[in-house]
């Protein structure tokens, strides 16, 4: 698989403030790559640098094999960007918005009109296509902004916080649309988000940023293995345990949190779980259920952010 974005030792500054610090990574053709981090981590700055809107202070960038500094216009012709605010012309209709942007990309009139109908239909906006955008709901506006980003069939689709201002229902709708865009057309998607569940749901690979620094990079499985905060097992009991479970009760137990009818045990490996259950049965525990807790991106993210904060002290 070839890379479509390559960033090497990228640093960017606003005045004295370093917005991005010595970043290096690649994004592969056809993948959904998520840049995850809190507000101010440098996500939007990265999209602007990749599209030639900013000039980097140091380092090199290649997008579709080109330097955004010298070939910004050509790169932007082949990318589509959903900006953090939908940036739609609210006094114009949906069709006028799409026609305006399509013309700026140099699409011939006949192709453009056909494409406009296609995207309006795909995003279920054709019934309101000739209404002014300021009469739309937030969810509709976001769908229209996505339609605008996809109008020119970009090779790379940049999504900057695509659901941050949406209610859960509209956010779900946008997630489903992004998934179907990817399945249908195999676009490369560069997703910037601070919503962990969004990255977990949509991304093939995740880069975690904090204050412009890259904290981690990899697939979710790779990150889980690398930054596993420990395997936790939750045991539900029918009645309080008469005895006590400690780290010495059996081999492989790291930490025990015991309440009346619930135990939370951190184990080294999965194979410590049968020994734990045997030990509990030996203490006449009446077990209702044993559940292994899944490590989420959220666990990894907060662990990394905490490490970053402690490292900064």
């Amino acid at each position, binding site marked *: 698989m070839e890379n479509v974005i390559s960033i090497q030792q990228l640093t960017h500054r*606003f005045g004295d403030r370093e917005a991005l610090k010595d970043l290096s990574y690649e994004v592969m053709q056809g993948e959904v790559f998520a840049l995850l981090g809190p507000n101010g981590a440098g996500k939007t700055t990265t999209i*602007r640098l990749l*599209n*030639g*809107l*900013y*000039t980097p202070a140091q380092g090199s960038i290649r997008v579709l094999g080109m330097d955004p500094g010298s070939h*910004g*216009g*050509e790169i*932007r*012709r082949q*990318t589509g*960007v959903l*900006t953090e*605010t939908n*940036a*739609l*012309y*609210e*006094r*114009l209709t949906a069709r*006028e918005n799409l026609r*305006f*942007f399509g*013309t*700026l*990309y*140099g699409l011939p009139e006949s192709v453009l009109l056909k494409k406009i109908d296609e995207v309006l239909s795909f995003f279920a906006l054709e019934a309101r296509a000739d209404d002014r955008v300021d009469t739309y709901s937030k969810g509709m506006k976001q769908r229209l*902004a996505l339609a*605008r980003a996809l109008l020119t069939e970009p090779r790379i689709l940049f999504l900057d916080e695509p659901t941050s201002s949406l209610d859960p229902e509209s956010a779900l709708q946008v997630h489903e649309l992004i998934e179907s865009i990817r399945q249908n057309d195999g676009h490369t998607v560069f997703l910037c988000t601070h919503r962990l569940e969004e990255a977990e749901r949509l991304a093939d690979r995740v880069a975690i940023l904090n204050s412009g620094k890259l904290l981690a990079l990899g697939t979710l499985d790779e990150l889980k293995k690398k930054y596993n905060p420990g395997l936790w097992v939750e045991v539900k009991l029918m009645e309080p345990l008469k005895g006590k479970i400690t780290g010495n009760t059996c081999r492989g137990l790291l930490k025990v949190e015991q309440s009346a009818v619930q135990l939370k045990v951190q184990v080294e490996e999965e194979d410590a779980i049968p020994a734990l259950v045997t030990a509990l049965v030996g203490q006449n525990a009446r077990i209702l259920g044993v559940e292994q807790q899944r490590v989420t991106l959220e666990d990894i993210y907060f662990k990394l952010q905490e490490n970053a904060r402690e490292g900064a002290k």
Partner: protein
Amino acid sequence: MNWKIIFTIAKKDITEARQNRSVWLPILIVPIFFILLIPLSLIIGLIVGGPDAVNFFNDPDLVTFLEKMPPVMSQVLQGLDSVQSILVLVLGYMFAPFFLIMPLMYSTVIASESFAGEKERKTVEALLYTPVSDTELFIGKVMASFIPAVGITWACFLGYIIVLNAAGWPLMHHLWFPLINWYPLILWVSPAISLLGIAVTVLISSKVNTFMGAYQSSASLVVLVLALLVGQITGVLYLSAIVGLLLGVVIWIAGIVLMVYAIRTFNREKLLVSSIS
């Protein structure tokens, strides 16, 4: 440079400006006053009042003013009775600077909407992500202000010609307007002053993030035209055809110099950074 793209940007900005009441309301109200209400009130007053109305103007200041009048104007007034002279003096002469306020006002209000307004509504970012070059974007936006400012001023002038000749017919009995000094003013000075207004607004818009902020700051240029108006009324500066041509040259040079500076300092990065800060 792709002119189709430039015209598309200009057309979009004009469409947007047309939908913004803060833009079209002043554009509508000013001509109603200057080409309809005030001229018609005066003409009707002169028709109804006749020579009595002229007495109203017969004060010592006006006498001094008439004495200072350049020979060209004296020739125009030759053979006219007192009622006709007042009509020609006020509407054919003193009103001229108002037709410089119009293009200045139109160009600054539309340019404020086009440059600062787009930053204010945060639509500029999507525009910057298109393949359009900085120059195309800049020229498109300048044209979005220049074409309507000059076009509306010229349309207003046509309306003024019709109103003055039609309503003034009972007094003048012939087509007497426009006078020769109006041609350079309308065809030469008003486009120059539109360009100057746009250049100043673009430079102000790079520092200001709201439509109103940009408009209020750039509208202060009206002071320059008011100076001309005072000069005209007090007889210090008579806007003859020659003065109009020379004035046009000065304003064109100022407008072009400022526009070149604006285009040199206009780029995506600055536009984005200034809209963040």
